[in-house]
């Protein structure tokens, strides 16, 4: 299963990347393919392609500010959480999504 996501915190310096790291690591541990786009002070990095998004079973927005180019995710199941939450409970969040999607 593939899950994609976006992390973005207000200053875009530390927490954006911490959250991305946590989600990616947790996914790896759980055997999921997790790709996170960071929208930080350096702009958009590790950008999600149309293909990434099409294949994703779910989308996570771990953000403290509005997501840029949100229109890419129209029609997808989106889980919106806080950045801190992603940093603290990345595994629990992925587990919950997994359960909700029934797989």
């Amino acid at each position, binding site marked *: 299963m593939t899950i994609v996501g976006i992390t973005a915190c*207000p*200053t875009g*310096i*530390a*927490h*954006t*990347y*911490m959250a*991305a*790291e*946590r989600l990616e*690591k947790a996914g790896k541990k759980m055997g999921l393919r997790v790709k996170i786009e*960071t929208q*930080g*002070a*350096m702009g958009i990095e590790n950008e999600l392609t149309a293909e990434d998004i099409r294949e994703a079973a779910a989308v996570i927005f771990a953000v403290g500010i509005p997501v840029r180019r949100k229109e890419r995710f129209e029609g997808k199941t989106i889980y919106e959480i806080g950045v*801190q939450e992603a*940093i*603290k409970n990345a595994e629990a969040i992925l587990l919950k999504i997994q359960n909700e999607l029934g797989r």
Partner: protein
Amino acid sequence: MAVEYGFAFPLPQGLHARPASLIQETAARFPAKVSWDNLRNGNSADAKSVLSLIGTDTQHDDPCRIRAEGAAERDVLRALRHLIEAELPEREKEADAGLAAMSGKAGIPRILLLEKALFFQGLPAGRGIIRGRVTVHDPGLEMNAEETPPGLSPAEEKSAYFEAAASLENEMRRRREETQEKTERTVLDAHLSLLRDPAFSAKVTALIAAEGISAAAAVSRTCRIFGDMLQASRSRYLRERMADIRDVSRQLLVRLLGTSAPETRIRLGAPAILVAEDLSPSEFLALDKSLLLGLGLETAGVTSHALIMGRARGIPAITGCPGLREKLRSGEEVILDGSRGLIIPAPAPAVGRYYEREMEADKKRTAARRKSSILPGRTADGRAVEIAANIGHPEELQAAWNDGAEGVGLFRTEWLLMDRPSPPAEEEQWALYARLAAEAKGRPVIVRTFDIGGDKPISFLPLPPESNPFLGFRGIRVYERFAGLVRSQLRAIMRAAVGGPLKIMFPMVSMPEEILGMKELLGQVREELAAAAVPHRPDVPVGMMVEVPSAALQIDRFSEHVDFFSVGSNDLLQYLFAADRGHPSLPGFGRPHHPAFLRLLKTTVEAAHAHGKWIGLCGEAAASPRMLPLLVGLGFDELSMTSSAIPEIKSRLRGLESAACRELAEAAVGLPVGRDVEDLLDAFERRGESGALITPELVRIGSDSRSKAEALQELAVMMEAAGRVGSRDEIEAALWRREDNFSTGIGFGVAIPHCQTAAVRSAGVGFVRFAVPFGWDAADGEAVEMAMMLVLPAAESNRDHLKLLARLSRRLVDEEFRAELRAIADETEAAELISSALAE
């Protein structure tokens, strides 16, 4: 019938002088009698007296009551209520904002603001930090007058007092009308309100009546009584009010006694920080220096002789701090920070700890400076570049030698002419230059002849003020008119040169004719001395400053007449670009790395060398580590600078290869704009780096820092010791600015303080693990176990900064990585671990 208004006092700092004077002003607008009762301590006051209001010792949240009785009692109560509830808190916020504006700047350690410490700021006048007790030197008119016996009956003494007060009030009013200066008016207003303060005159007259003492003694006692009351406070405003009370009392006493203060000798009974208005050189010399810990002066110039002598002895000092004598009391303990120009009375424990750590860092810094000061001025491949000092007094020689100066590249003499009614005699000058020659112990000393002009008024020389003194009658241009003065200087130097290698240098030369005129004068002087059989050195080398572009372009012509050159880079820059160095709207003009300037320097040095002449440089650029490779590459034989810059310049010089510097200078001269040279210098600076962001000296395991303030101090000091930053104060201030913006505590017991500023020479990462975790943002906040700091130079693109921070953040959320950081016991291993984590 009286009316009342009860409230809790709203200001966090209590009822100090500023709000008290606002309350007094408001109350005084109405005829009703107004009283202020503090219900916590039972103190009462007349609300129309500032002193009496302050005397109620009203603190934040104290229950208070204002009672008004008489005409317009309701109006006055309404006005006061509005003042206390609405206006005062607003006004205090404004005042606090003023204080906060200071906090982003380097030079005021943040701990002082965090601890709300009382401190006074002057000018740094002697490096170093000292903690000790104060001895206030004060002619003390108001103290001595306490003994004045009464000459008259109490009633007559009273009227003498009222007469003196009225006459003083009249004079103050007159001065207030006359002055256009806003701050002067404010001061006069404050003095007038004190003079009219009913509590003050009530106290004076009560003392005369009750004790039958003289008016002078009563004023003196009253001053002391109110003074003690105010001075017990840690509030800055009250201490300043104290200065006002003493000032007014003194002026009253002058009127009552008709005398001025008797001079008293300064005596130190125990080790002390001397606080005085000014200090004459003889007073300084008479002091027992073994007891002199530091100096806090009010009005002395930074370059006054007492302070020059103090610096030479390494005595921490500040000056330019008016009212210091009134704000401090003898016996009181203070920290004097001579490096930043601060004096901190009654330091709180956290402030004391911060400064203990500062003193420790200072000690290490001095030791490191000593080490590099003894290096010879040579590049890595052995090319000699003489590193010399710019000084203004023989007293500075010792400090210059201690800093590692190999000579004096610029000895200024114009101060000899200032602040005196007549020119110095040849003998006086001779004694000074002879001392210079003797104490140089064989090292070369370049004596620059009087550099005077319209911007430096000299009482006995008719130099009319000019609209543009920098393009006017100055330097060598005035010598023909004041030939007698110049002759005395040349005679004195030639005579003194018998005792050591003195050289003569003329300032502000722009045409060969000027030098020819001086050579003629030198010839006459030589003949006179020989004819009179006065011992002298006839062949004293003669040189000139190159600070006017026309001089730089005629080096070949000048080479026929002079033995050496020294570029005055500050003036040459401003004349070349036609831009005042300090002009606020022209910050980008006149930068020493601009290709146009480098091109001029290149042709100047090449021309001098082509004619076999020695050429040095004695402006600010000489002290710039960034300019150093360019100046070496251009081929200067000597660089002369303020002596405190010497150890660093010497150690930098040791790291440079002369061939690489030449290539750098060649390349820089050919670039189109200043920005390109900046980039070239950045690349050059980075070239020599190992690339290691973190080394073991940037790691501390088991740090004793107990707060954010101490942690940032520790990290900044570490970076400085590792040579990665120029001004560690600037780094600390930059780290704080970042923290103010958004705290860098990222959770997981980790903080990542960081900054990007021009004070950073090469990017670095520092790591500190604390022995005892503490709250990063508040004492009870989430505890931080370790801090990872990142500093980046301003020149680097922001992106590099952000990338490193992003990488660090990603690594730090990894529990395993944190566990490793927590467990690691060895600083070298920690540096390796972090290095490899950053490289991934």
